[in-house]
């Protein structure tokens, strides 16, 4: 999976100054994320958000945690890309050490880019942190 780094995302967003551009950026990120094949949309992978479904699968490869996600809403998919940029292909220690709240603050993307129940981001962040802790 070819993900931008958190620094690249922060740099990109710094150049976009109105909401339409920022949202278009998120939408494009969402479209670029590969997602999961339909048969992996299983209840056991479902992270329930209020307005859209999010699926999360994790595995370990060479001591690093890999995350594969999907959402039926493209903006949520884009938001998930922001989260995966921070967590995908990192060790459990790196994941737990990462200051996600500060990262979201830096993204400075207003209401919807903060982890709220509505967009399921908080649930996905919690789940990833739980997986890392159990590791």
């Amino acid at each position, binding site marked *: 999976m070819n993900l931008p780094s958190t620094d690249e995302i922060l740099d990109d967003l710094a150049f976009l100054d109105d*909401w339409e551009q920022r*949202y278009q950026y998120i*939408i494009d990120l969402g479209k670029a994320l590969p997602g999961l094949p339909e048969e992996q949309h299983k209840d056991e992978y479902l992270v329930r958000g209020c*307005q859209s*479904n999010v699926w999360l699968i994790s595995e370990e490869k060479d001591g690093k945690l890999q995350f594969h996600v999907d959402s039926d*809403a*493209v903006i949520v998919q884009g938001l998930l890309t922001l989260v995966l940029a921070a967590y995908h292909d990192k060790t459990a220690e790196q994941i737990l050490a990462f200051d996600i709240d500060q990262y979201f603050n830096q993204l400075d993307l207003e209401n919807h880019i903060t982890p709220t129940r509505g967009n399921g981001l908080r649930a996905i962040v919690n789940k990833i942190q739980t997986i890392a802790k159990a590791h």
Partner: protein
Amino acid sequence: MTLNVAQIRDQFPILKRQVNGQPLVYLDNAATTQKPQAVIDALVDYYTQCNSNVHRGAHYLSDEATKRYEAARKTVAAYINAGRSEEVIWTSGTTEGINLVANGVAQRLKAGDEVLVTEMEHHADLVTWQQACKRSGATLKVVPIHDSGELNVDAFHQLLSDKTAFVAMPHVSNALGTINPIKELTAAAKAKGALVLIDGAQGVAHGAIDVQDIGCDFYAFSGHKLFGPTGIGVLWGRYDVLAEWPVWLVGGEMIATVSYQDATWGELPNRLEAGTPNIAGVIGLAAAITWLQGLNAKDIWAHEQALLKRATELAEQTQGLRIIGTAPNKIGVLSFVIEGIHPADIGFILDKQGVAIRTGDHCAQPLMKRLGVPGTARASFSIYNTMDDVEALFKAINKAQMMLA
């Protein structure tokens, strides 16, 4: 006469604010309505002039609070044409009202009894009955709907039988806006000897309600969907039914006598209202109703229908948009999906343009499944919405389509 919408808007301070740098276009009225200044003033006045506990203080303020509180009960009783004001039970909202009834029903149901609900229930009027059936061994029967979102009335009559102990149905579907023929259905259910509850959450804010004319045994609604405060609702019940109803919450205020080992219950309405009530909420709700009674109910209806008609026209002209819920008899609710776009994405992009709608399953997961949609986007209109709001909605939808395509 037509509604003077500009004058009405002036009385809702929140409509003057901006969100996301845009003027607010508030189209989430089925979730909750905004509050007129008269309601805000009533709450402030209560807390600044009158705050005191009701029914027990031996002092001036308590007497005054009690007078306002009980006057509010009469205001509500008159608004819904209750036979007696003691039939008005204060609750925290529709959900609590239905739970109060379902709790009593569960105690009385037995295996072999049937409870009838509809496919269009909100979870508040479904999970309650499903759980009451699970507890009692009764069977839950679900009346199907047509694809248009209208209730299948023939199926209703077929499912109704001598076994039917209880019927619960929405006055108006929250997700689709369908207005059900509750009077006719209630009469049929009563003829079989069943008790009938109407979930009035979406029914109260769009025209006059006459519980005696409907003929039901219970009608539950929330104040906050009727321009009143959150956390206050009403369960209306027929006096002879409520007088014998199993008590729900027990504690202070609802008792007649108490010993360490036993207690007896007070009279209506107290026996179903344990503890210190939401006094400010009650007074705020009465203020909302009094304010609403200053408007002509027919004008309200005509205005909301005009908004719905225009919105429906624009929806039909929007490529890829499908209206979910096309019953001929609807309140001002436009539920829709757009091909290839998830409702949540529509909601995000509309919000950035200052347009507030609701997206998701509308607390009606089985209904969404029945309709074969993951959820819908729902715009719902109220008295203070304008044709400009409708135009803004579709301008915002067009932009969402462009961005998300």
